[in-house]
């Protein structure tokens, strides 16, 4: 799963959000490292919607601006859970190997 997809699904796991809400939430989730741009966001939303991982929730007009809300579907939640599981396994494997690695200064000469 690509990073934008992961960030979008994680943002929607908290509840339905509109496009700009997803951008700001994804930035928060990534610790300020990733800011989704509109083209990337909507290409991903279009694909995720077609795959049934997210769905349209509702539309609102706030201050004359259209806000279309998206929600995570059960299938999307399952896909995110599978990705979290895979990432956890990889992280644990990396942590185990790093822990087993000789520390600088203790390696045999």
């Amino acid at each position, binding site marked *: 799963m690509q990073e934008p997809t992961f960030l979008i699904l994680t943002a929607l796991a908290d509840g339905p959000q509109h496009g700009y809400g997803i951008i700001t939430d994804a930035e928060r989730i990534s610790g300020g490292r990733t800011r989704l741009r509109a083209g990337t*966001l909507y290409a991903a939303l*279009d694909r995720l919607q*077609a795959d049934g991982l997210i769905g349209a929730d509702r539309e609102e007009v706030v201050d004359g601006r*259209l806000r279309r809300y998206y929600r995570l579907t059960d299938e999307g939640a399952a896909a995110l859970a*599978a990705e979290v599981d895979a990432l956890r396994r990889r992280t644990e494997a990396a942590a185990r190997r790093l822990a087993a690695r000789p520390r600088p200064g203790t390696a045999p000469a």
Partner: protein
Amino acid sequence: MRTLEDRYRRLLALYPPERRQEMLDVLLDAARPGQARPSVVDTADLLFGAVRIRARRLVCGAGGGTWQQGLAIAGYVSLVLLLADGLRFLVNAPYVLALTAGDQSRGAFEHLSAALGTGPYWLAWAAVAVLVRRGFRRTATGLTALVLTAQSAVLTVYLAHGPVPYGMPATSVSTVPFLLGLLCTASLVTSPGPAHGARLLGRRVASAVPAAGALLALLFTAPSAALVTGRMYWPGDRYQPGALDMFSGALRMLQVGRLLVVAALGIALLAVLARSGHGRRACALLVLPVTPVFATVAETAVRGFSVEDGPHGPMLTAVAGLAVALGGLLLIELPARLRKGAHPSA
């Protein structure tokens, strides 16, 4: 003088119309105060995003196009019917085993293979259903591809060279279950998948499909045959010469009743699905596995028996049935297409 909004609108003209206003409002929300033109990075991102959306829709259709949605529904119905067939196998297994247990003319492997040989096949489809339900679509697709490949390989060798382990059981699942498996795999590969199909059907219809499948499967089991023969064979009964023929004969006698139930369930499903474009496409696709069943019934009605000489005949019948269904669908939707062509703005 052009404003930021005008410049964004020009870029967004590359996007599908239903996305433009929403994206424009997001871009204006995200703009810096006093920003007069899109940055180079934003421009490149918008151009690249438009290409990605247009390319994906060109290949797969918009928002899971009508055909994709139809395939998702057909995939769900196919998977449920495969599970129902597995249920039939499970209910019948102890009876078939008991009826043939004393048959000295068969070796132990041949006996077990004939009675329970398709067990792993049904188990694999049950695993596919669990994977689909839990959202592991890629693993489920791999497993369906593996099942279909193994099944085709065994069948090819068996039909070309005679006895091969699991050859006989492979023939028993070589037509309708194979075609259902094919639809299910196509649904997993080229559509949002059976789980999405279930959602498109809605909770009520989606839960009625397994109930109908189970009812259909149970009509093909030993207990329902007992209703006709008046004699129930229990697991553990001693083998009697001719018992298996009697059992098969009873199942054949149930044919009319089954046909009525299949027709009633088929009409009910058609009535529900025909209301939408994707539903009609699902119906057309489901004609593929259904045609061989009706061809066999029709042949039996006309000739008094049906000839089973491998899967090739039923496969050709199935493809012919699908072609007719697709042609029929085209004719049904032609008036609407012509109207749409005459009034493109509608």
